[in-house]
């Protein structure tokens, strides 16, 4: 089948955008370290920097997945099956953590368990448990987003029919014969994505653990010394080994996720948006703690931004002031102000949106066009669009950085929009994941009817397609902006040697300053609060437009 020109261009552009930086990074590092995959893998366990990293990465990702599902499924059940006052607000609160910048979450959990919070920073076990819970906090949204639509929009006739059949007389029977088969693809898809995000976690690992590393954080820590001939060769091998393992594992997860999501979309019977739900007062025992859980780290961050520690000869005391905020916004000769970081962040986000939205939409449309006649090719394209999930954001940042050095270091290091390359790579997959289910659910009969009315293609797009997809488009816009604003891993690598501070980078920089400066920690929380506030605003706005049946992930 022939692809439209726009589709071919989009696929080509995206392939270049994603493959070229990764290729440049890998090519450079292979050139330094040599091509010997077994040496790469062996160096991971052989070198003190990376010993135990593989096992730790898998362990924390698997545990995070299990805990996330254990917490998320009961919540999704309550939200999907029963009627709640302020339902949209509750859902927004519970799914909001996913769009929160990981650095903000890291600050939140640090303060929650630190001296100014629960004060339970005891040992490695505490750190590890905190990391797992932080991952669950983040990825709860995935379980809710995947599973709740199935539960809330299922045709009530199906359940009623099941109750009348012998197989469905008992609750266990109904779970086994109706809910489990219907929910299994959604649960599995949520598990895959939770695993992927936990596997590539960076900011949380960097700030919550006591020196433990995942593959991602190891690559970030030693990435700056990669690609230099005859310099720290072992580090190049470690990076290659880590990338190989990470890429393989994540690609397999994403392939599975793509299959599950397609199967899930086919499995979902035509559902009713108008279903009568019952009230379940006892469900508050699940939802209320969940809401508190979702809000606690964010409240902790905001709280800590006003709490200033004073240490003198008499001891340590605390006061409530706005000095942290003033410090953040004042800036200094050695650090940009929060204003500069904000303008940079907003600028990058807007440019990213202008590129990622049309690109992601066209890719989603291409997948849809292809999957009717060539489902395998469509799945390949689908997985291609998810490669940035499989390639760590740090690797993406490395690729962009090494690409810059190779093409024209001076130009790119002085070109303000350079970090946008990494932002587009990271946000485009989200656009695809939002638009693809929306396009799949758009009834083709509307376009056919418009054709029979003599309406030309451009007018059909503007008058029919855009309005019908309005909700999903707005969600994609808002999500892209939120993801770009909060992007940390790739930006950390790309902007480290430049003056283009973004809000997440500023938070990290402030937090990295030695603790003897009274205002840096509160300032980090102040900037976190600012970023959190913007994200919250965007996200609340997105919830107004999200289609009820949307089970597309975000």
């Amino acid at each position, binding site marked *: 089948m022939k692809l439209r020109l726009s589709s071919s261009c989009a696929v080509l552009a995206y392939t270049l955008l994603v493959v070229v930086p990764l290729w440049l990074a890998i090519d450079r590092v292979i050139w330094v370290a040599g091509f010997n995959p077994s040496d790469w893998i062996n160096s991971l366990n052989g070198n003190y920097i990376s010993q135990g990293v593989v096992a730790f990465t898998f362990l924390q990702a698997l545990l995070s997945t299990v805990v996330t599902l254990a917490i998320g499924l009961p919540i999704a059940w309550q939200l999907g099956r029963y009627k709640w006052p302020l339902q949209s607000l509750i859902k927004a609160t519970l799914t909001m953590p996913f769009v929160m910048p990981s650095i903000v979450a890291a600050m939140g959990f640090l303060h929650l368990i630190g001296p100014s919070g629960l004060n339970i920073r005891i040992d490695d076990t505490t750190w590890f448990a905190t990391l797992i819970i932080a991952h669950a906090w983040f990825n709860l949204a995935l379980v809710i987003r995947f599973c709740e639509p199935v539960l809330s929009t299922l045709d009530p006739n199906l359940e009623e029919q099941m109750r009348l059949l012998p197989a469905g007389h008992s609750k266990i029977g109904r779970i086994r014969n109706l809910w489990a088969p219907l929910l299994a693809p959604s649960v599995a898809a949520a598990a895959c994505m939770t695993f992927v995000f936990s596997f590539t976690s960076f900011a949380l690992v960097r700030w919550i653990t006591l020196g433990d590393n995942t593959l991602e954080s190891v690559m970030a820590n030693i990435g700056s010394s990669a690609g230099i001939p005859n310099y720290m060769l072992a580090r190049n091998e470690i990076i290659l080994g880590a990338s190989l393992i990470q890429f393989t594992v994540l690609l397999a997860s994403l392939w599975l996720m793509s299959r599950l999501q397609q199967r899930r979309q086919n499995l979902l019977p035509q559902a009713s948006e108008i279903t009568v739900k019952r009230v379940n007062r006892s469900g508050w025992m699940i939802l209320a703690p969940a809401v508190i859980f979702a809000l606690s780290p964010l409240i902790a961050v905001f709280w800590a931004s006003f709490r200033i520690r004073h240490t003198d000869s008499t001891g340590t005391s605390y006061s409530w002031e706005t000095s942290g905020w003033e410090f953040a916004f004042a800036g200094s000769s050695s650090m940009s102000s929060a204003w500069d970081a904000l303008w940079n962040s907003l600028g990058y986000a807007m440019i990213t949106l202008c590129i990622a939205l049309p690109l992601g939409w066209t890719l989603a449309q291409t997948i849809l066009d292809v999957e009717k006649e060539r489902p395998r090719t469509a799945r390949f394209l689908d997985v291609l669009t998810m490669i940035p999930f499989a390639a760590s954001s740090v690797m993406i940042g490395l690729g962009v950085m090494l690409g810059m050095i190779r093409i024209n270091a001076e130009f790119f290091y002085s070109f303000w929009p350079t970090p946008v390359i990494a932002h587009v790579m990271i946000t485009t997959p989200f656009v695809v994941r939002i638009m693809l289910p929306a396009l799949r659910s758009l009834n083709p009969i509307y376009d*056919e*009817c*418009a*054709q*029979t*009315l003599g309406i*030309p293609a451009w007018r059909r797009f503007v008058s*029919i397609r855009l309005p*019908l997809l309005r909700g999903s488009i707005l969600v994609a816009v808002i999500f892209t902006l939120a993801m770009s604003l909060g992007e940390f891993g790739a930006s950390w690598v790309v902007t480290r040697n430049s003056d283009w501070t973004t809000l997440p980078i500023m938070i990290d920089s402030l937090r990295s300053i030695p603790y003897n400066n009274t205002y840096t920690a509160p300032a980090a929380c102040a900037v976190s609060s600012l970023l959190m506030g913007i994200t919250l605003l965007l996200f609340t706005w997105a919830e107004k437009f999200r289609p009820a049946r949307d089970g597309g992930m975000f």
Partner: protein
Amino acid sequence: MFSDFDLELKPGEIIAITGPSGCGKTTLLRCICGLEKLDSGNIYLNDEDITNLPAEKRGVGLIFQSPVLFPHLSVEGNLLLGNKNGEISKALEEVGLSEFENRRVESISGGEGQRVALARALLAQPKVLLLDEPFSSLDDELSGKLVQDVRAILKQRKCPAVLVTHNRIIAEKFADSVISL
């Protein structure tokens, strides 16, 4: 699906095509209006070969089995899609739905929806109108009334039409002649 199939429609003529489910009635209509491609053969409209023209350029209208009304538009908005300069009130009056302009599409019944779809299709001034079992989702009384009304409108406008239905009785009431597949 079809071979050695010739169909000719005279100006102002209404024909009905009947046949069992799955015999290709809907596919035939979709080929005529351009929503499906022909493997072989030609379609002529007023002596012009429209076989390779896209659907929006053929001037052929289609009424679908269920009313296809755009949910984000009111009744008036839907009609304007047929003809942005059209006389909406007159079109609605013609189909017996005066003062329906500002109604939301989700608030109107199936029969009313088909009337709106007909008004919209006629506003586009099609050279021929195709109807794909538009009465099948309505009850007998309503469909009977609609059959009479739609036939009267088409005859008044001298608009040639092809109705596809599995209901022989409706076919004989609506059309000048009936073809069985």
